[in-house]
Structure formats: structure tokens, C-alpha cells
């Protein structure tokens, strides 16, 4: 048996014919996850969506930029207008990234450029950096960092496990990077979802880090000093304030932390021990109020939105205390704060299991809207359009992006789903599916 097995392996590895890469579809999303919205002069802005290629149908994941004013239907209407199901996304720009993309963070640079950061959990444990430069001739201008002509951003990506072979310990490294957040002054934090064993492959130890790097450097780099050992449980998402980064913890029992703080001045760790006072099993998405005195994060098992008050957010050890919690629909994922000057914040939460995006009103202390969007919503991006806001929610299980309009932030209960962008991914893989037939 052994000779035959060796022969087959040889065929598979080296002797097969060269085949063209199986590229993800342009102008569509496929198991979308991270999302960001950026303004563009005179239009509805540009939407950037990471496709995670979750079933590996294609060779790559993707980041697709969509000019929201150049959709096939003529562009998004004003806030509150009916969008409907827009399958033709118009002139899009797609770059290829590693599969299993996670969250997305955007950091503005001078001259109208913005950097997008997308970690992927596939091979190489990559952090992909993409430069967005608005529109060029009506199409989004998008390029891999340092490779303006390339469409494959894997080569220019930063590997968060590059140091694995540099020492016997294989440390530090961040296998399966997932969460990403950036401060207003450009410090980026990345979390990862698998602990780093040492030596690699031994399943021993199990180190957990946050990787920190400058988002505004010409060529951001990761070195040994970039890794901050967190200990405890895996970190999920991160919100970055002026002094501290706040990281949520996954599967915190019996010894993890619901929320950990990294002091950005010293990279020292601080735990407010919220898990001793509030015993949910783990935490997911997180966001800060603009004054950094209120922290909102999603708890799981049971599923709840937790509201914490922060005293002394700029001090070395802020006091963080859970002061309120409301039950959430099944499977809360991402959390986004929509500030309302002079009023309590609105908070949008994607609830994956329930297929909903919900709105929490901190003045009322309760949910004020539950919006069915489709199977497994994940990423959230907010486009402020005074006096309201438009929310884009990636629908992981459907392959589209839901558009939710809040015409007036003071009337959040009037929010509604106004449409969907993209083609359902079932129709990308099976064009004969009856649900994909266009009516005559």
C-alpha cells in the first residue's frame, strides 16, 4: 500500500497540469464578513466588503469596492428611499485576499487615501492591507499595499505567524487572525482565534496575543515587539480608544476575561474583572462611545448586550463596571455605536443566529428596533447622513449586504430594511436554482 500512496502524492503535488486559478466572482460577494463605508465626494460613498470564501469554492477570498452611486439601478436613493434588491453592483473593483476573512478596519491617510486592514484565518495567517483612493473615472480605486497593479494582495500581506520558524519556541505568532481595530491616531490591534502552541504543532502551552502595529507607516511591519501577550482566553474583537484598547474574550470560563485592556502607552495589560460580576460565557463584538465613557459589547450564553461605564478612560487603570444589560436575539456578533450629540447613543448589533440587526437606544435602555435581514448577518458599517444614518450589514449566509435606513436618529424605531446589494450566493454557485430566475 505504501508505494501506491507515495505515487498518488507525487501526482497531486508536482505532476499535474497547470490550471487557471479559480477566482472569486467580480461584482459579487461570497460569504461576506468585514465591511467599511467611506464617503466619496458628491455621492453615496463607497462600500468595501470582504468576502471570506468560507466553503473554499474559490481559490481566494476578496475585497470588493462598490461605488454606491454607480449601482446598476442608478445608485442608492436618499435616506429612507426604497433600494430593493440590487444585483448589478455596477463598476466594482475586486482584489483577492486569503480565504476566511474576518473583520475590517479603515484608517484615513492624507490626500484622501484610506487604508483597509483585513485579517484572514486561512494559510499564512495574513493581515491584508489595501489602499483605497476614492473613485477614479466612476470606479473605485483600490490597490494592494505597495503593489498598485496587483490584484492578488496575498504577496504584500503581513503574516502574523512569520516568526514561527525564527526560534524553537515558534513564538510570538497569532494564528487565525480575526478581529481588528484602529485608534484615531493610527495604532492598529489584531486579535486571533487559535492559541499559539509552543513548540509549533506540540499542542503545548497556548499563547494568546494581540498584535499591534502602526496603521500609518508607509509599509507597516510586524516584529517581535508587535505582539502583546494577553494570557487567559482568546480575544475576539477590539475597540481602540485614545489611551486603551479594549479586547473581548472568547470562552472565558474558567479563567478568561470578558474584557481586557491594553494600555497603549506601556502595552501593559489590565483586567477590570467584569466576569466576576457578570457571568456570560464569552464576549464578541465591542465598541466605545465617542467620549470613551461607555463601552458596549455583545455577551454570549446567554446572549446579551452589556453596557459598561468607564471612569477615568485616560488614566492608567480605568474603572470599568457593567451597569446595564439587555437580552439580545440569538448569536450577537458585531457592535457599532452611532453617537447622537446631546442624546444617548444608538447601538447596532448583528445577531447571527436570529438573522437580525437590532438597535439599542441608550436613552430608553432597551432595544427599539429588530430588523430581519437574512441568514447570519455579521459586519456592520455606518454611513452618517444627518439627521439619520444608513447601516450596511453583511449577510454571511446569503452573500448580500442589507441596507438599513434610519431617517432620523431621534426616531430609531422607524428604521427599516430598504434593500439588499449583490446577488444571493446560492445564485452564484447554482444559476439554475429556481429562486435565482429573473422574472420575465
Amino acid at each position, binding site marked *: 500500500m505504501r508505494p501506491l500512496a507515495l505515487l498518488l502524492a507525487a501526482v497531486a503535488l508536482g505532476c499535474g497540469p497547470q490550471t487557471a486559478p479559480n477566482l472569486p466572482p467580480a461584482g459579487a460577494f461570497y460569504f461576506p464578513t468585514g465591511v467599511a463605508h467611506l464617503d466619496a465626494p458628491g455621492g453615496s460613498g463607497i462600500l468595501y466588503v470582504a468576502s471570506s470564501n468560507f466553503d473554499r469554492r474559490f481559490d481566494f477570498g476578496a475585497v470588493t469596492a462598490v461605488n454606491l452611486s454607480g449601482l446598476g439601478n442608478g445608485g442608492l436613493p436618499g435616506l429612507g428611499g426604497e433600494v430593493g434588491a440590487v444585483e448589478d453592483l455596477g463598476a466594482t473593483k475586486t482584489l483577492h485576499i486569503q480565504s476566511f476573512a474576518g473583520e475590517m478596519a479603515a484608517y484615513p491617510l492624507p490626500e484622501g487615501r484610506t487604508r483597509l486592514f483585513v485579517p484572514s484565518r486561512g494559510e499564512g495567517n495574513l493581515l491584508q492591507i489595501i489602499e483605497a483612493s476614492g473613485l477614479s473615472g466612476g470606479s473605485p480605486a483600490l490597490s494592494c499595499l505597495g503593489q498598485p497593479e496587483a490584484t492578488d494582495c496575498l504577496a504584500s500581506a503581513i503574516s502574523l505567524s512569520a516568526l514561527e520558524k525564527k526560534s524553537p519556541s515558534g513564538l510570538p505568532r497569532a494564528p487565525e487572525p480575526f478581529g481588528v481595530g484602529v485608534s484615531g491616531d493610527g495604532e492598529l490591534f489584531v486579535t486571533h482565534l487559535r492559541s499559539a502552541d509552543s513548540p509549533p504543532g506540540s499542542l503545548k502551552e497556548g499563547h494568546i496575543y494581540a498584535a499591534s502595529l502602526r496603521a500609518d507607516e508607509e509599509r507597516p511591519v510586524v516584529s517581535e515587539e508587535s505582539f502583546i501577550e494577553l494570557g487567559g482566553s482568546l480575544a475576539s474583537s477590539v475597540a481602540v480608544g485614545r489611551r486603551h484598547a479594549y479586547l473581548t474574550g472568547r470562552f472565558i470560563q474558567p479563567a478568561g476575561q470578558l474584557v481586557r485592556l491594553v494600555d497603549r502607552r506601556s502595552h501593559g495589560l489590565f483586567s477590570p474583572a467584569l466576569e466576576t460580576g457578570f457571568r456570560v460565557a464569552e464576549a464578541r463584538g465591542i465598541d466605545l462611545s465617542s467620549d470613551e465613557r461607555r463601552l458596549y459589547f455583545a455577551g454570549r450564553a446567554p446572549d446579551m448586550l452589556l453596557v459598561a461605564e468607564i471612569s477615568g478612560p485616560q488614566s492608567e487603570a480605568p474603572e470599568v463596571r457593567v*451597569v446595564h444589560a439587555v437580552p439580545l436575539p440569538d448569536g450577537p456578533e458585531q457592535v457599532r455605536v452611532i453617537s447622537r450629540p446631546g442624546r444617548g447613543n444608538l447601538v447596532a448589533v448583528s445577531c447571527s443566529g436570529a438573522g437580525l440587526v437590532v438597535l439599542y437606544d441608550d436613552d430608553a435602555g432597551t432595544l427599539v428596533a*429588530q430588523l430581519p435581514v437574512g441568514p447570519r448577518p455579521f459586519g456592520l458599517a455606518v454611513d452618517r447622513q444627518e439627521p439619520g444614518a444608513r447601516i450596511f450589514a453583511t449577510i454571511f449566509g446569503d452573500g448580500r449586504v442589507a441596507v438599513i435606513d434610519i431617517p432620523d436618529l431621534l*426616531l430609531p424605531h422607524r428604521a427599516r430594511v430598504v434593500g439588499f446589494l449583490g446577488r444571493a450566493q446560492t445564485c452564484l454557485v447554482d444559476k439554475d436554482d429556481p429562486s435565482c430566475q429573473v422574472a420575465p
Partner: protein
Amino acid sequence: MKRLVLLGLALAACSQRQSALPVGIPGAFDLAQAGDLLFVNSTDRNELRVLNLAQSPREFVRAPNPLQALSIPVLDRPTGLVREVRYGDGLAEVEEGVQAVPPAAFQEQLEGKKLVRLPGASELGGPHLYVMSAGSPEISIVGPGARPEPGADPLSPERSELKELARLPTSAPVTAMAARGSETQAGTLYYATYEPQAATVWSAEVPPPGELTLDAVLQSVRFLARFPGESVTALLALPGQRLVIATRRDQGRSGQTLLFDARALAATPLPFSGPVRQLATHPAVYEIQGDQLVRTLPEGQRVYGLLDEQACAGSACGGLLAVDVIVNPPTVVTDGTGQPMAPIRFGAAVALGLSLGTAMNVQLPAEGGGFTGAVLPLLGLVTASTGELFLFDARFPRHIDTDPAPAEVSGFAYGETSLDPEENDLHGPRRISVADGAAPDESVSVIYQGRLPGLVDLPTQDADGVRFPAPEAFLPRAAAGDILLVSTSGGSCEVQVASVETQALVTSALPPGCGGRVSFTVRASAARPYVVVGSESGFMGRVGAGEAFSFSGAYFHHPDGFDPKVPLLRFAFGKEDPAIQRDSGYRIQIDGHFAPLAAVVDPGLTGIGSSLYFPGSPVLDSGRQLAFIAYPSANAIVELEPGQVQPPVVRKVVPYR
């Protein structure tokens, strides 16, 4: 001691230790008991399940196809349940020699037992249950499909045709509900809707089953009250067409609680110390005093409120307070010491649910150690986000402290050197005394030239000149001669406080190194350079050499013999250590010897214990002497006996899921 045993439901109850076949209750947050039925929401399945409490072993009520458990589909993602409540006669057994004082009355002898009729002692449900979903502008009305026979229990467990009778659309998302039943079986629903400009409270008359139509309910909807800029967090129906309305504004930092007359549309403020987010009341409470059976609390006399933890910062927020709403004006209830009760607090936990039960068995600390069984006329149960279940005395509201020892100073040190708190003749504090009930456990620091809490890292700018604006509330902590430590863009400088004004500290001319200032911190100096700060109490005061120190804050707990005039912490400060350095000082460790009657479910219980870490709503069932608690962490209901609960763990529970 003569005892009172509530009967009625208890006669029908049998102890059982088998759980029903699993039905699955994902998202079980809330419970509502109506007679022998216990309703639970399944948020993730958009349905209610119903546990039959009359049956032994208990089972979920069966569907018309009896192979299946009944599912009552309701509005999407149900989060809150309320039932209709009214109060009727209870029945109790008393020992020979007890005289009933009206309104209690002897009723009959039954099998040699002496039975007493107790008006108002029993909570009776109406035929309807109401279900809301946070953020949804509708309410599900659930009940039996047909009108019950006269005299029959409208929610008999045998009635498997329980279903959603109607779905009431509302003008905006519903934030709170309450309901009142009546003998005619027509109910009154109260509900609050929220629009950011204002919250509105409405009522609707709900005809009995068989006559109920959505049109009839809609036509009866009546406006009751409007609260601009607020949302209603809780409603509570009291006897006599009265309603309690709790509101919140400014992210829970403020709000009001009102006693509202639904007929006259008139409101009276209730003196809760902060915004309230959950309300409860009680049936009539009867007690045996000497040889007399007397009613000590008519039904609905008191309103218990869970205070919003967002009202202020620190662990001194939140908790539970009770207000007597029969006296005029309404007042905070006095506890066993004759003083207005101290809020019953739950440490770092967020209180999740509250239930009250009359004549409940409980374990109290026994003289000489251990526990002994007793009956409390009114017992409270609060579920907490720490997983703890707190049982407290709701008649004379306070925690049941299971540690009989008084508070004491358990440690006293200067740096690394331990000192005698009483006889310390070295330097610093001596003759330290702490009052019982001052704090649960506390570490008190007495720091030389310490930072003054509230006056730390405050923003400043060169344009303010010699003035350093600071929060008005904290400025009285500073004094002339204190040190101002100024952080600048290039480093730091120090300058002395010349005077303290109402809105700012004022210095003399600033040295050149203070340019480009960014923030400042005030350190104590001059005659009182020691700052006294407690880990629980926060800033307690300042002291200097040769002075007596006394802190008279609010007591955490009122133990027997409590005297509000006794300061919480006292000591004499002797001479000063001439070698003392800034930020060094003394640490006083206080052991409060406070251990409230609270327990978590033993995580080692086979099969389910490890998932019973986060409770939801509780229900105390006086007739059965049981507690039922929703556990969303386990998607289950748990049954336990409060009369067997001893800290730190509950070892015996019956799960239903």
C-alpha cells in the same frame, strides 16, 4: 413560636424529584406564574412553554396531540411576560390558642386542623397573559380559547387550548407592561410605549376569553400619561386602580417613580433614591404576634424597586429599596431597627429579577453556629448576574446576615510594618473603631500627600491663568496650601493652592515651567496632608497630626442595635512620622463580617450544574414553598426550595428544559 402555614395550593402540591421530558427552551429569560401554570418564554423560538405545577411529577402542559408538549406561538422574540393579578382570600392553618384579628377570620375545622381565612393573602391570576418583545410595537394576548365555566380556574392545566388570542398593535415599541385581573374575568392591561420625544402609558380593557376580539381591545385603548424625554422602565398594577410607573432618562442616570391613580389620572412621586428599573409588590401579609393572628401588611402596601445601577458610579449604586405607598406621603420603609431601610445591595452584580413570597421557609443563622429553619412573613428573592440567588427579609427589609460577628479591624499596617489598631503609639492612626454595618469588607488607605479623588487628571490650559476649573462637587475636598501637580506638554511643575473658589482652584503666580499645561492633579498638604479613601466608601476625608478622624457616611447594612448617630469609622491620628514620603501611609483593613444569605447553584451538579451560572426571572411560590427560576444560560427552568438554601451553594435543584 407559633407558626402560620399557608394552604390552598400547598394542598395540591406534592414533592417530586423528577424532571419533565425535555422540550427545549432556548432563550428562557422570563417566567410568569398563573395558578398552577408556570409560563416561560423561549426567545429564540418565538413561543411560550407551560409547566404544570399541579402534576407530580411535573410536566410541560401537553399539546392537543398529547405526545407533544404545548407550544404557544407568540410575537417574534418574546422577552417579557406579565399575567393579570388580583388578590383574593388565602387559607392558613394555625395552632390551637391563636386568635384571629379581623380581617382574618376562622373558617372551619378540617380534619382537626384550624383553618383561617385571610383576605388579600392570595394572588389570583386572570385568564390572560401578555407577552412583549423589546423593540416591537405589539403585544401578544395569550389565554384559553373558550370562556371557562363559572367558578372554574380560567387557566386550568387541563386546558391545552391555551393560545395566542390576539396580537395588539401599538403605536411604538413597548417597554413595559402590567395587568390587573378582575372577578368578572375581564382584565386591564397597562403598557408603555417609547418614542424618543416621550414615553406614553396606555390602558386597554381585555374581555374574557370567548368574548375577546382585537377590535374590542383596540377600542378600549386609553391614554393615561405622557413623559417627555423619558422612557418607562417598569409598570406595576396595585389594588384600587392604582399603578406604579418608573421612568428613566439620561441613560439611566435619572428618572422618576410615580404612584398613579388610573381613574383620576393623578400622580404622586415615590421617594426612591434613584431611577427604578423593576417593580414588585406583595399580597396581604399575616403574622402571629403573641396569640393573635394579625394582618401586618395589606396587599399592595409596599412597592419594592430595583434601582438602576447607572444612576451613579461605583458599587454604591443599584440595589433594592421599598416604599410604603399607603401612608401619605409615601415613605421609605423602615427596617427592623426602626430606621429607614438601607438599600439592599448586591455587590458587583447587576440584579436581574425580583420576587416576593409570603410565609416562606428559610434557613437563618442559629445561635452557636450553623443554620436553623424559620418562617419569614415576607421573603424576597433577587437573582444576580454573578449567578447568586439572594434571599432577604422583605418584611423588615435588609439582608439576612449569616455571619453574626460584628465588623472589626482585621489588619493595620504602615508600609510593610503591622501595627496594633488600638494601642499604636508609634505614629499615625490609633484607637481605630469601625461600626458594624459600615461596609461589607473595606480597605481604607490613609495616604500622606495623597491625590484627592475627583481632582485627578483634570484638563487645564494656559488661557485659564491662575485659575484651575474643577467639578464643583469635588472642590470642597481641597484646601489652601494643597499642592497642584501640573502636567505640561514638556513635563510637569508644582504650585501651591492659594484659595478654593466655588468653581476653581486659584494659585499665586505660576512658575515658568508651568507653560503648555495639559492637566492637573491636587495633592493634600498643609494642615491635613493625609487623604483617607475606602475601597467601598471612596473619599472619606482628610486628617492631620493630632486630630480626631470621623467618617459618617451611609451605612451599608443595618444590623440589630444599629444607631445612625455612630460614625462608620473613627480614629485618632497621633504624631507624624518625620520620614514619611509622599504617597506612602497607612492601610486599615476592615472585615465587615457580612455574609448575606446568598448562594449559587452547585456547578458540580450532575448534568446541568455547570450551565446554571446565569439566572433570569424568579418566581416564589408560597403555597408550594418553592422557587422557580429561569436560567437562560441553561435554557431551563429550575425548581428549588428556598427553605433549604444555605450559603454558598444550592445542592438540590430540579431542572425542566
